[in-house]
């Protein structure tokens, strides 16, 4: 299993440009997440999905959009890039077995995005 994969690894954008960060997992997980991590900070949740066709906002959704057309893929879209979106972006997934407990999330390698 490849686990959670993300592309690209690095990207530089100009202000106002748009791009899509790709995320895929091959573990048949229903739950998927997008986080951003700024220097010296923990991870902040941008959007999440509990299954194909279902998405919801996290703590910091402004300036981003997501879609979930398949179980495997969960792309994150930046429409009008701003310097405040310079960050490292992590995608994660987890299984939904054992509803009475919580299962750990598995993280992708991250995408380092710089907006100039």
């Amino acid at each position, binding site marked *: 299993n490849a686990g959670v994969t993300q592309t690209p690894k690095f990207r530089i954008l100009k202000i106002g440009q748009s791009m899509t960060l790709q995320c895929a997992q091959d573990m048949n997980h229903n739950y998927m997440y997008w986080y951003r991590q700024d220097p010296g900070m*923990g991870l902040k*949740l941008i959007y999440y999905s509990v299954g194909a066709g279902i998405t919801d906002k996290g703590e910091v959704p402004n300036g981003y959009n997501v879609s979930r057309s398949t179980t495997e893929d969960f792309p994150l879209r930046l429409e009008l890039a701003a310097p405040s979106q310079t960050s490292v972006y*992590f995608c994660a997934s987890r299984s939904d077995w054992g509803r009475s407990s919580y299962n750990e*999330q598995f993280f992708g*390698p991250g995408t380092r995005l710089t907006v100039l």
Partner: protein
Amino acid sequence: EDKVVQSPLSLVVHEGDTVTLNCSYEVTNFRSLLWYKQEKKAPTFLFMLTSSGIEKKSGRLSSILDKKELFSILNITATQTGDSAVYLCAVPGGDNQGGKLIFGQGTELSVKP
């Protein structure tokens, strides 16, 4: 509002030292607390704690949860340079929506030879 606070924010020790990292939390409907290690890349899972007073152990790392006082500690004994990383603590959000995790700021541990 759900909150996770870690301390210290950074720590420098020498190989062989023992370190204790702290995590306190405020969350409605607590279910579990998770520790992750992040070495310049994706966080990797270390422990999940659900019961108070029961130590989880993996080699030189151990962790314990105190549900009454709302905190957890992560201990690393006989530290090595390979333990240098950011250690993240997280709890599932109290609203139980989508299995969201609330992360602390992380503790950056640097182990010098």
